[in-house]
């Protein structure tokens, strides 16, 4: 299980990366991240929505309500141009951290 701080810090790049593959809705986003992380990343379900709303107010993602065949409505989120730029910046930052840590651990353990 990841620490609370790391889960919070990685929420935005995870959501942006996931949405760059196509639009999705809250419940599906949580399930997808849970599956991909083999349940090591766990969000408190409700807490995802304030993050999504903040990202929407930043202009990174857009939302629309879609009605399913059974009449149920779901709010779908999709990535915007600004979101792609934000993702690119965040990607560089995470890769920097990753490469520094990899280098340090390689020196230590090899």
């Amino acid at each position, binding site marked *: 299980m990841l620490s609370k701080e790391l889960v919070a810090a990685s929420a935005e790049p995870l959501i942006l990366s996931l949405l760059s593959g196509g639009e999705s*809705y*809250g*419940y*599906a986003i949580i399930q997808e991240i849970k599956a991909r992380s083999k349940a090591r990343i766990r969000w*408190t*379900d*409700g*807490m995802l*929505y*304030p993050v999504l*709303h*903040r990202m929407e*107010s*930043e*202009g990174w993602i857009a939302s629309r309500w879609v009605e399913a065949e059974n009449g*149920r*409505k*779901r*709010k779908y989120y999709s990535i915007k141009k600004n979101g792609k730029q934000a993702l690119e910046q965040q990607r560089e930052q995470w890769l920097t951290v990753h490469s520094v840590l990899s280098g340090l651990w390689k020196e230590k353990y090899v």
Partner: protein
Amino acid sequence: MFNVDEAITAWRHQMAAGGIKAPEVLDELESHLRDDVEEQVWSGASQESAFEAAARRIGKSKALKNEFGKVNRHGAWGLRANPAALSILAAWLILMGLGNMNLSLLLFNGFRLPHYSAGQLLWASLSVILGAALFCRRWRVLATAWFALNIAAIVWPIAAHGLSASLYAYAPHLGAPGETVRYLVLSLLPVPYPVFYAFELLKASMWLFGVLLLAGPSIGNLFRRASA
């Protein structure tokens, strides 16, 4: 017998009582809740236990309210400002901009005072553009700066030259610059000078309203951080 719809209605009331009042947010959370219940039931859980687990996973209204509150507070420059108030502000900006766009005077002054006419045109254009830009989230910082500048434009002459001198600057029939539609209309009417000042006060209030509406949450944030 457990009824999931009734349980969800009660859950919505509970969330609303806890401060999650926006119907759209509640709809979204309900949609999540139903997805979760559906999947659990499909996996073999009873509706009641599935509902309880799903509601627990969504979390308590107080914690959620705090998180949603952060969205509003930390949104750049109060991006969640009331749309109606924003519309009034935008209409005001555009009106002021168009009011300054006194084309006939601009043409006359274009020959006599080209630099003044250019300045007037620029001022008016900026007002109209920024009024429209209020609806574009990314430009609101500029609009806020514009409001602050307008406040300064009213306060500064009064502070620097006193009331009588600033009145001179606002009265076109006295020959000073300031030829705009509104001053022409006002100068043709037998209105006492306090009317000019009342109008200036209204303008200043509108600009101040704009600054508070757009930058208020950010200013509030600064205070919160300072006191934290």
